[in-house]
């Protein structure tokens, strides 16, 4: 048999050591690509990152599902500089609408005071889009209160919820890489 001496892993194109080199090459290129802006030929991801735990993402999605058919909203609490979400504070959507949201101002005050006591800040807001994609609407962009904030959108349009994060600076929307901690 001509292939009798062929090793069991013949289907693999690379030896393990070569595979690692290839992976490093690919992942290196991937990192380079995601850090480029669309105008630079990269993907839609920029260098902005939002770090948030898996459990907290599920908490956000669960809150959004529980508010259907209305849009849900809440605040991201964490360290403003490191862009790490420590926890979220679900808030009442005082607009009680399927199309718009307004974070309960009193809940924002309470969340802000509590965050300050912990050495944190409100670093962003999440809300759901029940029938549209997880991308900031013109209303979201025009009313974005803080260019340093993270704007998390949860789309419930499809059966599987979609969780994405953006920065909104002077009307320019940039998707952020969501890093699950």
């Amino acid at each position, binding site marked *: 048999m001509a292939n009798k001496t062929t090793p069991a892993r013949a289907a693999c194109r690379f030896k393990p050591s070569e595979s690692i080199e290839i992976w490093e090459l690919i992942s290196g290129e991937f990192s380079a690509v995601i850090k480029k802006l669309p105008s630079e030929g990269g993907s839609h991801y920029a260098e902005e990152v939002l770090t948030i735990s898996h459990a907290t993402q599920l908490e956000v999605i669960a809150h959004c599902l529980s508010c259907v058919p209305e849009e849900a909203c809440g605040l991201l609490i964490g360290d403003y500089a490191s862009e790490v979400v420590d926890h979220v504070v679900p808030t009442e959507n005082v607009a009680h*609408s399927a*199309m718009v949201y307004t974070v309960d101002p009193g809940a924002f005050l309470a969340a802000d*005071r509590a965050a300050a006591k912990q050495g944190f800040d409100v670093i962003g807001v999440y809300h759901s889009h029940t029938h549209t994609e997880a991308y900031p609407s013109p209303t979201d962009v025009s009313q974005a209160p803080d260019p340093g904030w993270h704007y998390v959108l949860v789309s419930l349009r499809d059966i599987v919820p979609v969780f994405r994060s953006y920065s909104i600076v002077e009307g320019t929307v940039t998707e952020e890489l969501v890093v699950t901690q």
Partner: protein
Amino acid sequence: MTVSIRIPTVLRPQTGGAALVAFEGSTIGEVLNQMVAAHPGLAGQVFSADGSLHKFVNIYVNDDDVRYTGGLETPVASGDEVSILPAVAGGAA
């Protein structure tokens, strides 16, 4: 009477990064005017062109929104905590 004012992250570039500032006055209007005099960059963020409170900003003295307690004439006392917070709204519409 000195009251402390908590500055939201969006306005901290105007206060040199300070999250907490303190100014004097007997009404919230006097305190905010002192603040704006010291940090002119805050003027357009807090007040409209006609001198009233900007519609996208909520000002609290302790737990009360000053829109419901006399507006800029709302009295303040030493030790009061003032918060300036942006309105947070949006939606798919």
